[in-house]
């Protein structure tokens, strides 16, 4: 540990499990600063969460003296320096260390942590860190980077998670990195109850992926970006802030343009022993902007969402720009999805005259201006200029642009692609009512990993009725939630299918991929030894409990009702006449077939508004059907019967439901 002490000032250590004995930290903490101009009292995130950050309220209230010496904690150390939390699994210790602030960007932090905590070269794989960079300091769209050491390439690589600002929270707590060191990791380190069951299931999955992936999605070769061409072909790729679904330049961001950068030297999984190995590693990217300009760097990814967001929604259509944006978003700790969707929003506002160069600090934000896009990103990291505005996210920008610039609030609502304050991920949903619900009803906001129903609904037409869609919007969000509960990857479920899946099953049953659901049942039983879990329904039930509790939590926090499931009209249909005209044949046909309206003689605006009334009604009917299927009332609140059936009828939950259930939608 001498090596560590050379770089990081030792502050505190304690044996794992002794958290409760620590006292006195809170007395040293000061209210959090607020770079957004509000007082600390107005902004509970930055006051309460900093105060309670590392230890939790119970400990802060506990004034008992502990084994650790509070006097060694520097005066206001969380304000002066970042903290580095080391979970040392080898020594059974958790240590809190002061860390210099000079390098908080994650691609440097990850390498630093490996260098500091791997005492021998062979230990590098045993060091992983969680961090967020300087962009997370100054925006509300900070995400987390999780490092893993790649011995083949000799670099610490990064994977991102945590949309919704958790990286911002980490940086507001002044945590530079959460580091875990454990050099003894083996495939059975989680002490599974039935290793043989896991090995048998794993071998089956391995064999099928090796055989079927080359015939199906080719995730091993292309990663998730194989989707870009498909989405463009089917008018689902978000172009220019989701105005359109395809673009003639889209081929510039198809997989082959990124495969040129990929280094293939064997399976490239981000997880121990993964056969799917969809992680991709781009090399040889020379940066043309920002603090690392001129350096040649590596980039993990890009994933489809980043390609579609930066390449299509912002209209850059350039692989190098996508990769550079991906690199900087990652190292700055900024969510690529929220960044690109927020940028697409301000680009449309710029083209509509709501913004101009005076308001953007001199930036020309027409769609496709890659240099300006990157400059906004760097401003976020530096905490200055228009980057601070964009970093607030679309919901706050809508309010600001209406208030400060007199923009039409309804138009901003229509084109601002956010729900519950979270920016949309990258699929055009205009022709899929079920997917509109998938986004609008997601507990955390419009994130595709709760329900992805576009093809099943809009193309395959496998869920034509409201009841069908409601069933899909019950099953799939619950099932997909289960992956988050247990920390397993979703991709081996339906990004590869048994060869006979679509002939053995039909409709929604085929989409469930029953054989693969059973794989997860076997894995769960193998790890936990729970023989009472026999089918996918048992797994889904676990999620129903959690999902409904999440909904109740949202309700408690002032959300969780019907008004918060409302979606921007851009995700439902054409907002402008130009959009309508771009798909006039389709929309005119729908007026005739679905509404019984003859479009002849109607102006584009009249036709667009007639379609809008119909589509908005359809969405409300969908919501009604889903609420009923989920056991919620017409305001989207779980009924008493539902919470009782799920066993979450705790006294405070019951009180909340009783208080809110009678209120009108």
């Amino acid at each position: 540990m001498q090596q560590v002490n050379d770089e990081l000032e030792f502050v505190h250590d304690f044996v794992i499990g002794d958290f409760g004995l620590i006292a006195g930290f809170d007395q040293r903490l000061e209210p959090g600063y607020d770079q957004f101009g509000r007082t600390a009292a107005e902004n509970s995130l930055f006051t309460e969460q900093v105060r309670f950050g590392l230890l939790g309220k119970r400990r802060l209230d506990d004034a008992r003296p502990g084994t650790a010496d509070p006097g060694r904690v520097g005066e206001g150390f969380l304000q002066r320096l970042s903290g580095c939390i080391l979970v040392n699994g080898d020594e059974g210790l958790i240590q809190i260390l002061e860390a210099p602030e000079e390098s908080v960007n994650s691609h440097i932090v990850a390498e630093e942590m490996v260098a500091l905590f791997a005492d021998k070269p062979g230990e590098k794989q045993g060091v992983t860190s969680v961090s967020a960079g300087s962009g997370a300091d100054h925006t509300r769209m900070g995400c987390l980077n999780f490092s893993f050491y790649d011995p083949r390439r000799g670099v610490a690589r990064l994977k991102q998670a945590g949309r919704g600002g958790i990286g911002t929270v980490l940086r507001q707590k002044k945590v530079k990195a959460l580091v875990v060191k454990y050099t003894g990791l083996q495939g059975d380190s989680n002490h599974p109850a039935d290793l043989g069951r896991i090995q048998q299931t794993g071998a089956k999955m391995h064999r099928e992926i090796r055989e079927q992936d080359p015939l199906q999605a080719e995730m091993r070769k292309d990663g998730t970006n194989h989707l870009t061409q498909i989405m463009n072909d089917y008018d689902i790729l978000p172009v220019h802030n989701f105005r359109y679904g395809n673009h003639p330049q889209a081929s510039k961001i198809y997989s082959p343009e990124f495969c040129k950068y990929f280094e293939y030297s064997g399976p490239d999984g981000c997880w121990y022993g993964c056969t799917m190995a969809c992680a991709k590693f781009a090399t040889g990217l020379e940066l043309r902007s920002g603090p690392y300009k001129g350096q040649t760097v590596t980039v993990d990814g890009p994933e489809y969402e980043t390609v579609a967001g930066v390449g299509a929604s912002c209209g850059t259509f350039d692989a190098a720009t996508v990769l550079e944006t991906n690199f900087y978003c990652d190292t700055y700790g900024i969510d690529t999805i929220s960044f690109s969707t927020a940028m697409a929003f301000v680009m449309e506002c710029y083209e509509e005259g709501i913004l101009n160069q005076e308001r953007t600090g001199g930036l020309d934000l027409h769609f496709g201006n890659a240099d300006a896009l990157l400059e906004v990103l760097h401003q976020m990291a530096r905490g200055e200029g228009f980057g601070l505005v964009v970093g607030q996210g679309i919901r706050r920008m809508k309010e600001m642009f209406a208030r400060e610039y007199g923009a039409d609030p309804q138009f901003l609502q229509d084109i601002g692609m956010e729900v519950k304050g979270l920016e949309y991920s990258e699929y055009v949903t205009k022709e899929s009512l079920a997917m509109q619900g998938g986004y609008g009803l997601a507990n955390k906001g419009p994130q595709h990993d709760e329900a992805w129903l576009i093809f099943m609904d809009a193309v395959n037409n496998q869920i034509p009725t409201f009841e069908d869609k409601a069933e899909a919007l019950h099953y799939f969000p619950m099932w997909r939630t289960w992956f988050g509960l247990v920390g397993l990857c979703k991709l081996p479920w339906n990004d590869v299918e048994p060869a006979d899946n679509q002939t053995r099953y039909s409709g929604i049953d085929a989409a469930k991929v029953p054989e693969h659901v059973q794989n997860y049942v076997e894995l769960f039983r193998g790890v936990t030894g729970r023989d009472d879990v026999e089918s996918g329904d048992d797994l889904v039930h676990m999620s129903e409990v959690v999902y409904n509790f999440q909904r109740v939590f949202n309700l408690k926090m002032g959300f969780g009702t019907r008004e918060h499931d409302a979606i921007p009209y851009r995700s439902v249909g054409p907002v402008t006449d130009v959009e309508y005209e771009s798909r006039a044949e389709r929309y005119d046909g729908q007026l005739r077939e679905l509404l019984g309206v003859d479009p002849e003689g109607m102006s584009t605006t009249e036709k667009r508004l007639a379609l809008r009334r119909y589509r908005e009604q359809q969405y409300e009917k969908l919501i009604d059907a889903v609420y009923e299927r989920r056991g919620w009332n017409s305001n989207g609140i779980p009924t008493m019967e539902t919470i009782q059936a799920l066993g979450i009828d705790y006294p405070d939950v019951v009180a909340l439901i009783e208080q809110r259930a009678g209120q009108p939608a």
Partner: protein
Amino acid sequence: MIRVNDKWDVPWQEGMTVGDVLAACGFTHRQIVVSNNGRALPPAEREAQPVADGDRVQVIHVIGGG
């Protein structure tokens, strides 16, 4: 007329094949399962499979997505 996925109508023409129907619909995805009037069509046969006026073609795209 050929009815596709109970959703779209494709005008029938003499000598039309399933491949023509797929092209007319813009279905470029390579992972599809096709049936005609309820009869599954093996991939090797489907492109050249003739269709008759009034046939009902079902095209299931196999895609996991996001």
